[in-house]
């Protein structure tokens, strides 16, 4: 457990203990000092602990381990270790083009206003379906909407390999079409091998990565 989480847990337990004492002995709050103590313990501390805990949980929900803790995502996790540079997620993960501990979130968030909240709402829906509904087979999982180039351009825009790439500049219309999301990075015969879990059984894997 990260040390920051341990500190938050200690603070939360301390707050619960102080509140427990006040709940057991409400007479302590009769005086002026007691009233101030009650306000700090029963309003300021719970709000502070709640916000800290929520922030910690949100950070944890972005981790690769969190996403892959659901059985349904197992094959998607394996696809990050495919030993083939044409596999887009695998090449990003293995070459640290995305943070390894936030690999899923880095590509599957939306780099727009409230994009992070929107994908977290999707995540909550996934958890509900996982525990209370019937989760689809891994190969049947589809994106809610076509993958937007905005997510790729968040990192690649301005990069020399992107801006001066031979294929990107072979036609002067290509680069503007990519930047305006008219020509998809993924579905235009260019970087179109994503997780490809249907063919995972016959794939070769990068052993050091596991």
């Amino acid at each position, binding site marked *: *457990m990260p040390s920051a*989480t341990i500190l*938050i*847990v200690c603070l*939360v*337990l301390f*707050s*619960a203990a102080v*509140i*427990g004492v*006040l*709940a*057991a002995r*409400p*007479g302590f*709050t009769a005086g002026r000092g007691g009233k101030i103590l*009650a*306000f700090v313990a*029963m*309003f300021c501390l*719970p*709000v502070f*602990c*709640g916000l800290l*805990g*929520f922030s*910690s*949980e949100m950070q*944890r*929900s972005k981790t690769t*381990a*969190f996403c892959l*803790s*659901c059985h349904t995502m197992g094959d998607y996790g394996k696809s990050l270790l495919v030993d083939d540079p044409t596999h887009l997620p695998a090449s990003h993960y293995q070459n640290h083009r995305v943070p390894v501990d936030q690999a899923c979130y880095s590509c599957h968030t939306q780099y727009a206003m409230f994009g992070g909240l929107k994908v977290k709402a999707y*995540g*909550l829906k996934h*958890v*509900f379906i*996982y*525990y209370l509904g019937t989760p689809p087979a891994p190969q049947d999982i589809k994106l809610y909407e076509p993958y937007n180039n905005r997510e790729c351009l968040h990192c690649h825009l301005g990069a020399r390999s992107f801006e001066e790439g031979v294929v990107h500049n072979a036609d002067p219309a290509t680069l503007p079409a990519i930047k305006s999301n008219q020509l998809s990075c993924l579905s235009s015969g260019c970087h179109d091998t994503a997780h490809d879990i249907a063919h995972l059984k016959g794939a070769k894997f990068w052993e050091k990565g596991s």
Partner: protein
Amino acid sequence: MLSTSQFEKRLRFAGICLAVGLLIEALCLMWATPIAFIVFVAMGGLLIAVGLAVYLYSVVSTSVAGD
């Protein structure tokens, strides 16, 4: 007028809600699974919100009664 025992009852109820809510949050922080996130928000968050609301209501109603 709000009697002292009524204020204490509300304070005790708020305290129990807050303490239980915080204990649930502490457990969820140590339990790193997706279901913990749901329990954290749905149960811990709800109990803390109820506890805060009851506490604030008891403080405000005491002030009004004292005026």
